[in-house]
């Protein structure tokens, strides 16, 4: 690595750890943790609130604060997913597949320990790849077109099998329903209103926040009320929170190849502009399940089901900064707001940013890195009191959870109708939970459908015009191979296991 980069990195670290600058990443991390622990609130809301406040600040504290917002926001959403089956945002939804069963088994500490470790180490991998890849990102991003985006959407959809638990058929149906819900609103090509049934509320489409809050938070609350369960943890485990944080930490090192693979996958997906971070966790979980020698415990409290998506979710933050800083193309809402902040402070992403303002770039990167570690360490320190919440009487927790969910639903767009939408999805989510219909594929399809539909149309149109040759694009071939492997590998493994069993 070139010495000017090393000098800039060192200078930035010195600044970050000096007084009073060190206060900003700590304060930012604590704020981001508080926000992301509340269902429906996220770092994007926090960043939007902070922009007018920081308008007159110098660039260095601004980079420190916003870097810590990005870094500190993901983990706490996973904590609520693990403890209460309530994901902070879509990217945390997949962690609950195994994290929540671990809590019900009384292994909440182990789950959070694994999540915290994967989170911190995954962010480290993401940052390292960011620093190495930054100079090369321009040409890589220009190689991505509609065909590549279409293949990424299809690859994401192949992980549905892993997210569907024991009923692939119902998982596919849930995904179909997710697609249907994503079609509501204006068609992006013709601006026609689709499937609004005359309701103005649906003209902007269904917002992901109320759907997520309903399907998970409110559905969980209804289940608690209807089942008469005394606590969130299973009754027999309520007096003994088994599992230790150390078990979870060691599990990450025991499954280090899985962790590393998931982190790299998360970084790569985060680096693709416009995908959004939610997809990284889903794909990492799917890959972990599909490539595991024994995947029978996935969805039933397998710690690998926590390690893989958590590593990917935090590594993607580093990846998302690559196109943001190198090209000015945001990866998602958070990086779009970050781009706005950079522009407001006279910083232009691209060559100028990477040459004249390299120290500021590294200040942002160090802040992201430090806030991820701080969040994980604080999360581990708070794991016992947080895990004890699962033993509080459910009848006392229910109104608090409901009201927090209501605040999250209403705060997003300021519409009471979003709360009504969340309640309706809560009822549907509860019914799905009762009959073991998987809900995660619905969320995943809702996230991926716009990307899939837009890319499909663009790809077909370009192909009609003779402007694109699908088979001459190397990334498309690579993604096609990955998609095929995702589909074939689980079937092959199942057949191999059955054959071995027959031989034995």
């Amino acid at each position, binding site marked *: 690595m070139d010495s000017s980069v090393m000098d800039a990195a060192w200078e930035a670290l010195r600044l970050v750890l000096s007084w009073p600058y060190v206060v900003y990443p700590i304060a930012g991390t604590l704020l981001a943790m508080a926000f992301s622990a509340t269902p429906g609130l996220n770092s994007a809301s926090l960043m939007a609130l902070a922009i007018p406040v920081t308008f007159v600040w110098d660039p260095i504290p601004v980079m420190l604060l916003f870097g810590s917002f990005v870094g500190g926001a993901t983990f706490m959403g996973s904590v609520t997913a693990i403890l209460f089956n309530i994901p902070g945002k879509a990217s945390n939804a997949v962690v609950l597949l195994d994290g929540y069963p671990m809590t019900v088994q009384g292994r909440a500490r182990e789950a959070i320990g694994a999540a915290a470790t994967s989170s911190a180490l995954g962010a480290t991998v993401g940052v390292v790849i960011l620093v190495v890849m930054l100079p090369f990102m321009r040409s890589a991003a220009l190689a991505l077109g509609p065909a590549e985006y279409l293949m990424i959407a299809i690859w994401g959809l192949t992980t549905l099998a892993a997210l569907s638990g024991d009923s692939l058929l119902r998982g596919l149906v849930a995904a179909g329903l997710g*697609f249907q819900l994503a079609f509501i609103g204006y068609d992006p090509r013709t601006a026609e209103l689709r499937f609004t049934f005359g309701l103005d509320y649906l003209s902007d489409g269904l917002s992901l926040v109320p759907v997520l809050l309903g399907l998970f938070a409110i559905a969980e609350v209804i289940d608690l009320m*209807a*089942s008469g369960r005394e606590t969130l943890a299973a009754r027999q485990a309520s007096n003994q929170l088994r599992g230790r944080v150390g078990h979870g930490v060691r599990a990450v090192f025991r499954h280090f190849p899985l962790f590393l693979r998931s982190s790299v996958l998360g970084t790569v997906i985060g680096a693709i502009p416009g995908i959004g971070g939610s997809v990284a966790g889903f794909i990492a979980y799917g890959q972990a399940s599909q490539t595991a020698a024994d995947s029978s415990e996935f969805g039933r409290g397998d710690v690998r089901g926590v390690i893989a998506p958590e590593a990917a979710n935090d590594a993607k933050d580093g990846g998302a900064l690559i196109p943001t800083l190198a090209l000015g193309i945001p990866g998602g809402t958070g990086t779009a707001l970050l781009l706005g902040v950079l522009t407001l402070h006279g910083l232009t992403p691209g060559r100028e940013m990477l040459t004249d303002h390299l120290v500021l770039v590294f200040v942002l990167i160090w802040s992201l890195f430090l806030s991820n570690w701080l969040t994980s360490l604080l999360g581990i320190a708070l794991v016992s009191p947080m895990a004890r919440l699962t033993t509080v009487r459910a009848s006392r927790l229910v109104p608090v959870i409901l009201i927090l969910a209501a605040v999250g639903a209403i705060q997003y767009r300021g519409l*009471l109708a979003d709360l009504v939408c969340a309640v309706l999805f809560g*009822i549907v989510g509860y019914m799905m939970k009762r*009959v073991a219909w998987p809900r995660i594929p619905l969320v995943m399809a809702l996230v991926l459908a716009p990307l899939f539909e837009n890319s499909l149309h663009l790809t077909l149109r370009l192909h009609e015009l003779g402007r694109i040759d699908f088979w001459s694009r190397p990334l498309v071939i690579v993604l096609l191979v990955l998609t095929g492997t995702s589909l074939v590998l689980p079937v092959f493994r199942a057949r191999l296991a059955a054959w071995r069993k027959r031989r034995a």
Partner: protein
Amino acid sequence: MRRLRSGSALTFGFSLLSAWFLWESFALSRVASTVPRLVLVLTLVLLAADGLRSWFHARERGGEAVPDGDEAAGPVPPKVDAGAGARCLAWIALLPAALWLFGLLAGSAVYCLLFLRWRSRESWVFSLAVALGLGGVLTLLYSVVFPAAPYAGLWAL
């Protein structure tokens, strides 16, 4: 059998919804409706397959066991009494009603108080303390953190 019946009801409900969407798609242009129609038809086929699978399993096992694919999903959930279920849904529906009437801040406190006192059967002291505490936290959040005014409710008009 309980899970089978509930599962069938959900399959039927989702089928109705998908069929309704498919019907609506015929009012759209070709560009806007192509992908939705493909997805809707596929979903309806899968729902029909799921319904048939459940029905065949029920016939084979005399309706005694849950269908394949759900067996590993855990124990059959306990039967929820219709009255208890209705009360549960009523409490859930009360939340948006309370917020609509009294606004986000007062409505949250009122709902919390009612729930803890009458549903959870907590003491007046505990219920009031939690309700006021929650209302206080939300007031602080909206006055210090959130720039937008909280939803004021019908009583503010």
